[in-house]
């Protein structure tokens, strides 16, 4: 990053920041990230789980009292007695048993009949529609997550952040994380260790390519090279710093979610993760394969949720599933189901308001192909995650989605209250100078999500002392400097767009 961009990020040029006077000589790395952080996500994370191939929604969430369902599925139907009852009319596939206790605890929201107008039954086109959040008749090349990261987060580009903006576990990168304005916003890898091994010894190349077709291809490759070099170390460090505390199934998805949990708990500030599992295109002999798929998904999710809670980061994370479409109501003659339309979708997390949203599909009112009509637009779910979970102001929706969408009350927002000027007060630490530890007192006047971080004089973040929602009150937290060398340190408290910083001196 050049100096001008650096200064702009610090707020010197725009005048938006208050920190630059205090921290004039702090290096780019820490504070470009901090600047990014204040106006964006406050430690909140969304984990997207893509079920590729078109999950059979009707056999996932089952209308247990609907004779039309039983008639349409002579051999594939799930008997009422076998379904896991959610209420008088609705049940879950028995293979989703691992999610039952989460549902009972109110951590699973199930939104019924999610889809879009003029549904497309091509895997590829419909996947593109879901990833891009476009209308059915509009082709958009980038992803809604990529646009969120590029358009809504403030003046930055990929290379300014300490931690990657988005991570895909797996080594084929999705269009979800692309933005046509800035290129890829995320990185992908199979595992932190493998990633680190791959990158070791690479050198970045900063020659600007010419603005030609070939030059743009070259620019993309160079960006990927720079991204991978930049992030390999911090990812390995974060993954190595914690251990999973729950036992995951030994499946590809289980391993993916285990990595995500480690990275979140290890302190990586990446706000968006993408995971995926394939195999849902069940045209033939569906019963066994679909059951196995649902078992795999629900076991992995249950382990993930348990792990997040044991690792004490569950308040920050919401997981959403999606699939490019549901399947035809009538089963086909191969013991399977063909491509369909709307389907249920899961939103899972400790701050989720659990329960069923919307009623069972109306199987007496299908479209011309015999498919379910959608009731909730999938962009409503995205809009909800962006605003309620990631704290995006509602008026920024058109920067990410084709227009504004009505949100659903899926997620508790008590953790997303952001501070306003005067809503908290950070006091000077005592004692100061100190050796080896000191107390930092602060007062919260308006409940909010707060973060307190310590930086060295060189601008490296030393530790994060607080990153959670705090009720009003007076608090004290200790900073133990025994592991660190003598010198000047800064403690920065932030919430929403407000930040306060104190200077502390450690003398050994």
């Amino acid at each position, binding site marked *: 990053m050049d100096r001008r961009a650096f200064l702009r990020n610090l707020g010197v040029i725009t005048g938006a920041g208050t920190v630059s006077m205090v921290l004039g000589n702090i290096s780019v790395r820490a504070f470009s990230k901090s600047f990014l952080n204040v106006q964006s996500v406050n430690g909140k994370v969304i984990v997207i789980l893509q079920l590729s191939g078109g999950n059979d929604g009707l056999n996932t969430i089952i209308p247990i009292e609907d004779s039309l369902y039983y008639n349409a599925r002579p051999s594939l139907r799930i008997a009422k007695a076998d379904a896991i009852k959610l209420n008088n009319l609705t049940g879950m596939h028995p293979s989703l048993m691992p999610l039952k206790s989460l549902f009972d605890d109110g951590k699973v929201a199930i939104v019924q009949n999610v889809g879009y107008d003029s549904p497309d039954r091509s895997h590829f086109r419909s996947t593109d529609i879901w990833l891009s959040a476009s209308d059915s008749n509009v082709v958009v090349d980038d992803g809604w997550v990529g646009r969120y990261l590029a358009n809504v987060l403030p003046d930055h580009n990929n290379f300014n952040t300490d931690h990657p903006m988005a991570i895909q576990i797996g080594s084929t990168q999705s269009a979800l994380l692309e933005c046509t304005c800035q290129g890829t916003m995320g990185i992908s890898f199979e595992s932190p260790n493998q*990633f680190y091994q791959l990158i070791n010894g690479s050198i970045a190349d900063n020659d600007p390519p010419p603005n030609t*077709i070939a030059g743009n291809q*070259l620019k993309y490759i*160079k960006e990927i*090279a720079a991204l991978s070099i930049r*992030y390999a170390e911090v990812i390995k460090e974060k993954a190595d710093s914690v251990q999973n505390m729950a036992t995951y199934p030994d499946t590809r998805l289980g391993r993916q979610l285990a990595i995500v949990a480690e990275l979140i708990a290890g302190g990586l500030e990446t706000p968006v993760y993408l995971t995926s599992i394939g195999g849902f295109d069940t045209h033939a002999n569906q019963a066994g394969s679909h059951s196995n798929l649902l078992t795999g998904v629900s076991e992995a999710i249950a382990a993930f949720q348990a792990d997040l809670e044991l690792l004490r980061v569950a308040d920050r994370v919401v997981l959403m599933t999606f699939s490019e479409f549901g399947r035809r109501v009538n089963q*086909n*003659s191969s013991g399977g189901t063909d491509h369909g339309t709307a389907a249920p979708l899961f939103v899972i997390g400790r701050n989720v308001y659990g329960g069923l949203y919307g009623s069972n599909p109306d199987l007496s009112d299908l479209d011309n192909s015999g498919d379910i009509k959608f009731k909730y637009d999938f962009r409503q779910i995205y809009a909800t995650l962006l605003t309620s979970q990631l704290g995006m102001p509602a008026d920024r929706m058109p920067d990410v989605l084709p227009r504004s969408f009505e949100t659903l009350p899926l997620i508790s927002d008590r953790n997303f209250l952001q501070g306003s000027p005067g809503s908290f007060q950070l006091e000077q630490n005592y004692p100061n100078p100190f050796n080896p530890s000191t107390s930092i007192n602060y007062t919260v006047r308006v409940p909010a999500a707060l973060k307190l971080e310590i930086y060295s004089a060189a601008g490296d973040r030393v530790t994060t002392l607080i990153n959670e929602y705090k009720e009003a009150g007076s608090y004290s937290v200790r900073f133990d400097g025994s592991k660190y060398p003598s010198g000047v340190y800064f403690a920065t408290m932030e919430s929403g767009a407000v930040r306060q910083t104190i200077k502390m001196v450690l003398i050994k």
Partner: protein
Amino acid sequence: MKSGNNLNKISVWDEAAARHILSRSLFGYNKQDVEFALSITLDEFVDNYLLADQPEPPQPGAWVNDPTDDNTTENTRELIYWWYNLMMTQGYSIRERMVLFWHNHFVSEVSKVSLPQRMYWQNKLLRDFAMGNVRELTKTITIDPAMLIYLDGVRNRRGAPNENYARELMELFTLGIGNYTEQDIQEGARALTGWRVDGLTAYFTQDRFDNEFKTFFGETGNLNYIDVVNIIFNQPAAATFLCRELYHEFMHVAHDEVSIAAMAQILSENNFELKPVLSALLKSVMFHTDEVRGAKIKGPVELMVGAMRQFNVATPDYPYMRTVAAQTKQELFSPPNVSGWDGDKVWINTTTLPARNIFTDTVVNGRRPGGGDLTFQLNLVEYVRTFSSSEDAVQLIDDIAKIFLQFPLSENRKEYLLNTLLDGAEVYDWSTSDPQAEDRLKLFFKALMRLSEYQLS
């Protein structure tokens, strides 16, 4: 694109043109290849070499004829190495490049097809038609055993249609989305009924065939699979769709509908024979413009086989190549789904790009990252001595770049490569007789092939 629809033949057949055509129609090339191409005319090189019919290669093993051989792991491995070897040894023919193109077009995956024998026969079919008639290829692949299994054609029968093949036939293989209706899929599926597979053979069962009238693209009759393909190819979208794919394969991924339409005209005027349109394209002004050069991102197989051919490796390490193919996401006979590999930028991400770099390092080192020698060891001093500029460091870098890179090197990059090669020595001290020459050349080639430019074709 500035050149627009310009399928006129280029007037100058020079080294730059030869390098570009070799880069796009083979899997890598070496110095001798450029010299050979320039020793004859452009017309001769394209029509008598690149597009000339080739003899049928020997089968990978007797197992391909035995449907009961269930040694699938070993047979799949053998099949992959066999194809790598054909790519290595194809000579001046575009055929294997086209077979890979068709493999990524008429996609099947060995995991669902279950017998690698069937993938061999599908591969042979794609090779038989590699530069042949697209419409006839489409008819034949429709009743290819691997395809019948892969897209559930074997489950498609009278009274119980399975639409899987009908949909992909129109969406991915011939017309593209938006050029057919849901009704065309349903009616087309009915016309495609009746086919089953026994072992390695497809056969028609009259009582599974929907022996009634169907209406497909407005034509009504007791249509069968031949009618379906003929009717599809009567749609103007068919020639356009296929030429768009060819354009992406040989030019670049940008859209240029004017040029694509001009190619489509050649294809349909020639009754869907491929050679005329390929010949015109490879000789055309639009193919040889500067901005097309270096504008394609190499696929993993192209990258790996290309590296072997650039260094004239006689005994490539196929097991290692297969390992890298998995890391870089192009396992032959196992495309990710029915739409095949996306290609282009999707090839390159923060995992696959480092894996490519480690591959080229490994080729130069002759040793796998975890230890263990490759099946070959390069002798780089001997290799660079095949260049007349071998003792002139600056010129040598230019000459080698012409084999390894399609994208012009900036002065900065040249200087970086020169510094790497000299490793602290003065430029006039460079000599391949220096005891350090082999080590310096190792550093140089690793740096060269780690350049982002090396990923471009």
